[in-house]
């Protein structure tokens, strides 16, 4: 095993081009476990901690360009207004120690369906900035996950950042685990209201081979909210609409039975989380609308 220590982003790209099998390591949450448990013996280990810009973020007009290695703790502490869904998801990641080291780049690189960031990214809308010596690609996050623990990265590419749309409305994230902290998701759900476009977006984690959106549920809810004039009236979402939305979210799952939970439970739980997060986000939206009205 060789240990590569690029001191800059350019060096990192050059090293990855030269050694496409090099495994990038930043927070170490996934890579070190695999090494410690003898599941993986990469030829090259490439430390990205010395590439300072990976741990930085820029808040733009439309999006936040979030460096791949910005620790979850910093997302929770500094980006709660711009990225509320991701900040909530960040708060559910493993333990404080892990949140101090791990970042979204690791979740994307591993592309486990159980990665906590995925549902929030899917719901908010995001593009992954992947770079190689050949150039830069912007991959919509929906297209980034290609299979169980597989992603759209080419062997010579590294994840530079994620461009996440700044919240234009309430967002929520909820995750089911069988412990009240430090737990891998049995399933997770992210929901974002986008009042500017009068749309909703969803993200489902750990209930299909990849993180997925519940597109049929989104379409149904978009139509129902539009037809019912809910965006303007700010009235409570009809229980039957919420119920149907929850059913469609459940139907978007394609889960398995495993040691963490049954497929049947995952489908059920996603439905409950979909209904609850819809209630919470819509309640926030209504409250904000009413306050806006008074002002």
């Amino acid at each position, binding site marked *: 095993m060789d240990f590569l220590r690029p001191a800059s982003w350019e060096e990192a790209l050059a090293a990855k081009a030269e050694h496409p099998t090099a495994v990038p390591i930043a927070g170490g949450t996934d890579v070190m476990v695999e090494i410690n448990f*003898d599941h993986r013996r990469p030829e090259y280990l490439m430390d990205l901690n010395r590439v300072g810009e990976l741990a930085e973020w820029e808040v733009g007009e439309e999006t936040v360009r979030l460096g791949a290695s910005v620790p979850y703790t910093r997302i929770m502490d500094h980006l709660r207004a711009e990225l509320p869904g991701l900040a909530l998801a960040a708060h559910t990641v493993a333990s404080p120690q892990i949140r101090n080291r791990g970042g979204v780049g690791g979740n994307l690189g591993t592309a486990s369906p159980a990665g906590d960031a995925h549902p929030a990214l899917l719901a908010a809308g995001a593009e992954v900035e992947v770079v190689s010596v050949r150039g830069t690609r912007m991959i919509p996050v929906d297209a980034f996950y290609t299979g169980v623990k597989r992603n759209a990265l080419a062997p010579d590419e590294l994840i530079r950042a994620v461009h996440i749309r700044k919240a234009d409305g309430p967002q929520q994230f*909820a995750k*089911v685990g*069988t412990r009240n*902290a430090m*737990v891998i998701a049995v399933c997770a759900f992210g929901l974002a209201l986008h009042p500017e476009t009068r749309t909703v977006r969803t993200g489902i984690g750990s209930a299909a081979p990849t993180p997925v959106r519940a597109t049929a549920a989104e379409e149904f809810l978009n139509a129902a909210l539009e037809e019912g004039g809910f965006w303007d009236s700010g009235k409570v979402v009809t229980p039957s609409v919420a119920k149907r939305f929850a059913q469609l979210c459940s139907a978007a799952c394609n889960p398995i039975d495993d040691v963490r939970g049954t497929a049947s*439970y995952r489908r*059920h739980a996603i439905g*409950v989380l979909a209904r*609850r997060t819809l209630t919470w986000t819509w309640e926030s939206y209504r409250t904000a609308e009413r306050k806006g009205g008074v002002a």
Partner: protein
Amino acid sequence: MAANGAPTKLTQGAPAKGGIGESTLRPDGTLKVTGEFAYSSDMWHEDMLWGQILRSTVAHAEIVSIDTAEALALPGVYAVMTYDDLPTDVRHYGLEIQDTPVLAHGKVRHHGEPVAIVAADHPETARRAAAKIKVEYRELPLVTDEASATAPDAVLVHEHRTDHHIHHVPHPNIVHRQPIVRGDAEAAARRADVIVRGEYTFGMQDQAFLGPESGLAVPEEDGGVHLYIATQWLHSDLRQMAPVLGLPEDKVRMTLSGVGGAFGGREDLSMQIHACLLALRTGKPVKIVYNRFESFFGHVHRHPAKLSYEHGATRDGKLTHVKCRIVLDGGAYASASPAVVGNASSLGVGPYAVDHVDIEAIALYTNNPPCGAMRGFGAVQACFAYEAQMDKVARELGLDPVEFRQRNAMEQGTLMPTGQPVDSPAPVAELLRRVKAMPMPPERQWESSEGADVRQLPGGLSNTTHGEGVVRGVGYAVGIKNVGFSEGFDDYSTARVRLEVAGGEPVATVHTAMAEVGQGGVTVHAQIARTELGVAQVTIHPADTAVGSAGSTSASRQTYVTGGAVKHACELVRERVLEIGRRRFGSYHPAWATAELLLEGGKVVTDGGEVLADLVDVLEGEAVEVEREWRHRPTEPFDPRTGQGNGHVQYSFAAHRAVVEVDTELGLVKVIELACAQDVGKALNPLSVVGQIQGGTTQGLGIAVMEEIVVDPKTAKVRNPSFTDYLIPTILDTPTIPVDVLELADDHAPYGLRGIGEAPTLSSTPAVLAAIRDATGLPLDRTPVRPEHLTGTN
């Protein structure tokens, strides 16, 4: 050759008197908070090698061949050993039944069984070498449950049993069977107004001590070996190891290094023999440290169980009879299974007065992971079931569940199902009363001015509910556990106590082989020495095999038995000191001959308080040392057919009230409070007593809502050997645990004390289950409860 990090003497000076009854601080505390306390995994030696174990990848198979050539050829590898390389004809070991091969011989009987061992100069080299050993398996049919174990054509897990239980078991795949019959349950059933039956399932729990199995074996110049080890019982290890190593016991020296928790998981051997074999083979010190994955295969677990119960009661709320059948899965090797059967059967009815009982408990041999000792063994599984039954009967009778238990609670003088009278206080009704009387935690405690605090709701940080679907439930349970080794076992301990003058003041040194695994025995020994010898300074000698056996740190027995031995040795030292005093100073004061004399504050005083002499002057450079064995009252075996007999030494009782909140839609549980009341006889160190009760309570919580080793029934392989998927409670899963300590002396025991470590683990689980039933209305007949069980999605 001395190992780096070898245990140092612990000195505990006390600002005050520091005797029994005070919450003196741990003598090893400062070392533990500064990181200097040497655990077995911290041992280091110049030139040491690292040992690695190759384990079976299948559960039941013939070993067709093992090829170690490639592994041996790897640079940095010093030794590779298989069964054929063992030095003597003794190649099996075991706590009671020597059925466990040191390395697999011809076949493997469970997933993760040791097949070969490697020593190399770096752990990674050792891992690579182990991976290069080629083992060819031919898989055999699996025995995984009672049906497959006892079928007429069942494959035998052990073909040639010679142990003494084989003569009374109905099938060779049954390790041990214990029936207990008293009264006439059939006739009593006819008098019952209500009869309630239930089938219950108890999952496989892991001790999950935080310090994985580890140790350092150092070869010695005389051809022997010195093992620095984390264990629960040095002398039991030694007895099993020496014959396999081909060494007399005095050439196998054992020193206890720091132990990172035990809970039963270190009663059996793990890497002890392997490290010594490699050290003797290579002539170099060998360290073995399991990682967490291996630890799940490296020790026995709590027996999973299937329990069938029938309870009958009259309309006025008195139990008429109990019938039960308890099937424990012992896995591939016997370990402590016979004793677990003894406990499950004899304590199978719980702390209730029932005249007509018909009980049967068995432990199976299967190809599942071996099971043995874990905190409260046997009694824990039974308590889960009988307490569920007590709630069911109460509901059937329309009685309050606490009231119903109190009407049937045993008391001093009650006969156990074994016919043994309970001859010390048994405040079962009182414990229930106390736990019920504690103030209830406030409702909707999660609400704050800023909305719902998810940390205080089911799901915790995962943000699954802001109060939706959350229903509160309350449940009660009480349990009974035996203290000490039962059924005629010669359960003794040894203490060596020395009193001398050092640095101008009297100092006592206490030397025992007691395994301090975190429970605080070392604290209590110093307190006992201070009380008995009236000195401030007490040094605790490292535990080793240079002194006689202390017995096991298990069965809630060490404060009773080794504490008793220390007390006894101190009393003998005191007598000798007084003799010396009489010889030297007797002529100066008549009280030497006439008064009751005590040692207090470093002086010889009369019971009237008159000072006769300073200990420093009495001892005058002389050291007084006594080593003695000490035994509790003898017990007797249970009759193999009727289960009658005075099998137990002492009983320990605890009661819990659980308050839970259940997210009924998602099936997630938050335990809000777990209140406990326990009788401890006499609290030698109140702070440690409460710590034991809270720790035991939390392990019971774990088995109620999350902890389970999942074994695939099709392959008998463990599916979750990691802390990612075997979950134990975090601080956010653990509620406040108010403790009410009752002290009713047991006159048979030193200071009237009662063993305390295990009882709280018993009643915690059924109390949580009862609370979840209360919240959900679901029957819930298995533990742990998973979200699937609460949402009908399993």
